[in-house]
């Protein structure tokens, strides 16, 4: 029998085996045929971040057949990126990550158009994000994830009956890595668990208490933090410049003084690597973990675009320290999520609440950094260099009872740098 493989000389042969053939494991509404691959080729995807995950994602998407890819990143290339961000060379150091990555992939994978955006994600508005059929994130920052998550939730319109209009839902695939660990997840804004529904998955940032670093240091990190937090602002070196952890002369300045402090307290372990690690809050990173997580994310993108197999439901954990381990868990939507609820929520508070107890609760609940609270009439709490006159009043307010400042049913607007959008809380005294 002489048979001919119709795809024998086809560039996309491998993918088309899956898009052109039926399967028991497909998404129920999948119909095999060439139009599946065509629709994949015609879909527009956005990659956020052109770093360790971003470089891998661009490659993976281009080699999965996606032809229209946008990439957004505000960063420039550093030598320490080169151990994993394989689209960059030493001669690219200092250039825009988005631009170099886009040009490289476009040149390597013919027919693929990659458009770079060398800017912050906040610089783009709803009209920009609405153009994409899905968004894939390779970010190292939680506030940035919360911002894009909020944007995509806001883009979802409602039908007259209050249900989400499916045509306005842009799925978000989010990857993250740290050392040999990582995670990947699929989010359908307003339909499934979003970043803020599961904000407690992210450990809050560890900050050393000021009294420890100032009076009872015992770890090398304490010495470095002390120089950063106390000595630098006091001595104002480099003509009062703010501390730039990317500037080697600044790192040296801190290192020298941290060593001195460590010697005074008989603490071992201050060195240049630790100093730059503490100052920049460096997350260790290797090529292999980024490859695995980006492949997981791109595989989900391929599934979403073609329905060749069911997407994960909905959160994947990965670690490769002891063997290799993966697990997929289904995260539940939080019915009280402020993002999914359009930023407007009731909050029950006891009549014995002070402003401080409310703020502590909100900081804990929403992982806030430095919230501002205000009613329609006045600011209740605001610590900002731009509004120094409010600081004293804010601090006085902390000890006041909430019931003396607002009445039942009043709304308090809570804003913070980590929130994409302010939260409006309707007070209900209980």
């Amino acid at each position, binding site marked *: 029998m002489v*048979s001919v493989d119709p795809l024998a*000389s086809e*560039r*996309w*042969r*491998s*993918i088309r*085996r*899956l898009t052109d*053939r*039926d*399967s*028991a*494991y497909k998404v129920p509404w999948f119909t095999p045929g060439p139009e599946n691959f065509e629709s994949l080729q015609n879909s527009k995807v956005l990659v956020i971040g052109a770093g360790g995950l971003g470089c891998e994602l661009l*490659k*993976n998407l281009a*080699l*999965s057949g996606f032809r229209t890819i946008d990439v957004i990143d505000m960063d420039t290339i*550093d*030598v*320490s990126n*080169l*151990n*994993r961000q*394989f689209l960059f060379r*030493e001669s690219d150091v200092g250039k825009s990550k988005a631009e170099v990555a886009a040009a490289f992939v476009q*040149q390597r994978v013919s027919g693929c158009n990659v458009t770079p955006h060398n800017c912050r994600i906040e610089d783009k508005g709803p009209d920009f994000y609405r153009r994409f059929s899905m968004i894939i994130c390779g970010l190292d920052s939680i506030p940035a994830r919360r911002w894009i998550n909020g944007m995509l939730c806001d883009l979802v319109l409602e039908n007259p009956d209050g249900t989400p209009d499916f045509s306005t839902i842009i799925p978000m695939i989010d990857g993250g890595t740290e*050392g*040999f660990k990582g995670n990947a997840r699929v989010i359908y804004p307003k339909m499934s668990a979003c970043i803020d529904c599961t904000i407690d998955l992210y450990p809050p940032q560890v900050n050393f208490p000021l009294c420890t670093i100032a009076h*009872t240091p*015992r770890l090398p990190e304490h010495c470095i933090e002390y120089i950063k937090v106390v000595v630098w602002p006091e001595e104002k070196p480099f003509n009062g410049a703010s501390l730039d952890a*990317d500037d*080697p002369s600044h790192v040296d300045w801190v290192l020298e003084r941290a060593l001195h402090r460590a010697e005074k*307290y*008989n603490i*071992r372990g201050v060195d240049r*690597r630790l100093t730059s690690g503490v100052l920049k809050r*460096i997350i*260790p990173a*290797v*090529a*292999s*973990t980024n*490859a*695995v997580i*980006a492949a*997981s994310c791109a*595989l*989900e993108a*391929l599934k979403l675009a073609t329905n060749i*197999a*069911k997407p*994960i439901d909905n959160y994947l954990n990965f670690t*490769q*320290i002891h*063997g*290799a381990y*993966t*697990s*997929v868990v289904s995260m539940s939507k939080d019915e009280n999520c402020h993002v999914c609820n359009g930023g407007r929520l009731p909050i029950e508070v006891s009549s014995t609440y002070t402003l401080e107890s409310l703020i502590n609760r909100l900081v804990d609940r929403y992982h806030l950094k430095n919230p501002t609270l205000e009613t329609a009439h006045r600011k209740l709490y605001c610590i900002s260099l731009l509004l120094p006159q409010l600081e004293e009043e804010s601090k006085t307010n902390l000890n006041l009872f909430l019931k003396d400042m607002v009445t039942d049913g009043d709304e308090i607007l809570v804003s913070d740098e980590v929130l994409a959008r302010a939260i409006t809380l309707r007070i209900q005294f209980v």
Partner: protein
Amino acid sequence: MPPSASFDPSYRYDRQVRLWGEEGQASIGTTSACVLGSDSLATETLKSLVLAGVHSFFVVDDARVEHADLGQNFFLQSDDIGRSRAEATLEKLTELNPSVSGRASCQSPTALAQEDVEKLATFSVVVSANQSESIDTKFAEVLYNIRVPFVCIKSYGLIGTMRICIKEHTIANSHEENPRPDLRLDAPFKTLSEIINETDLNEMTVEQLRHTPYILLHFKALDVFRKHRNNENAFPETTNDRKEIQQILQSFRRSTEHSGTKDSENFDEAKAAVMRAFQKTTIGASVQSILSAAESSDSTQPFWLICEALRRFVKFNNGLLPLRGTLPDMTSDSNRYTRLASVFHEKALLDAQEVLRLTREVEKERGVGDVISDDVCYRFCKNADRIRVQHGALLDYTRETKECVRKVKEMSIEEQSREEKVDSATWLLLMRAVGRFRKEKGRFPGTNGVPVSIDAQDLKKRVEVLIRESVQVSSRFTDSPISLIFQEEEEIKPILHNVTDSAIAEMCRFGAAELHVISSYVGGIASQEIIKLATNQYVPIDNTFVFDGHSQESSTFKL
């Protein structure tokens, strides 16, 4: 940034050296990898190794670049069509890291297998990417005996597999997460005892008490515990004993006149740490067996030299391993914490020096020079309670297929979910059936334009044959030939039932598709495992890994 700092090679590797240390980076820097194949699975594996900074690599493949390569291999581009794929990928891989050198050979892995495979002994690791079972088998046998790690990886449709084949692998630093602290509560060393004896909780002000590191509170609580028992060697053994320690700790608390509260962080930490800290300092069974093996070994490998020294150290050190020497962080004033941290550190240095002295003895006995440096010895001693040895098994597809069949047999699948999800062992068995199909028909199922439904029947026959072959051997002791056939059929039926037609059809749907994302996933896993092998750090997969892209779940088997 000034150029001097920006092109410092150590800065290129900064983010990974934070994980495996300068010593790990140095080991990677001496690693040379040989890869059989140059498809995207091969290049994705090499990509992460080149980026990590291996010394060199060697690509072996006779394939020429085709159109389908451009749809899956990132290290090729349009104008490479028709060129040697090994050479074309080599060019683009070496661009990734100027300090790594690469070579390519246009010989086929099959031809290489005919030659003297032992010349591969110069490589630190050999990787087989999507090669046939006969090539894997041939290389595995030779490499196993010359102790070169062999990593077999496959990317097939939505399935990825990896088999690590190595006779023996030693692990000096497992990087165990949250290891139990080595505090020696049951056996304090001299300089630590001095600090404990100087400490009198009753003489302290409340302020001093609240800044006392919890390890001192633990020792003081142990004193009271021993007085209660009237036994100066008593040590909490049971959970109830440890609860008693917690109660004693509670009784040490004092309130300030000012606030009246007894709350204090160091006591909270002390209480929380009781269950983990109050453990006898013993040597775990796996370390014990390594030490016994070291005595009878005559190996001159650094790991075994130092293990024999370690065994001698333990013998003369009351059965105790060298002190780890790191004190966990705990609330304290600076002075007492750093003093304690120093005595722990200094004792660990002393122990390591003694181990080094003994290592020199062993080196001399075994006729080698000074192999072990101070640094290596010190780091080894710090992790001595978590050293490991993995014993591998030779790659043997017949034996391993039997294992897969046994796993598939033991599976209990609910009727309603059997069409939804396929077990990893089933995928592995199906990969073997595809291998058999390819060997017998010279092509993969679902290719050449043959309808999937026809190849599915052919593939199912091969699944049945594989099961039959596996079952046959296991029931060879039955006497009557008729009952044997009957028994065999009875045994085969439920196993075959567990391999659903849907799963068989899915393998045919793949039609030898190599999806870039699956290759990239498996390549990422494989490169990290190779780094584990090269650095003797972390714990490699032992020995088979299966990834299912449908569910994105994975499993590990020891075959």
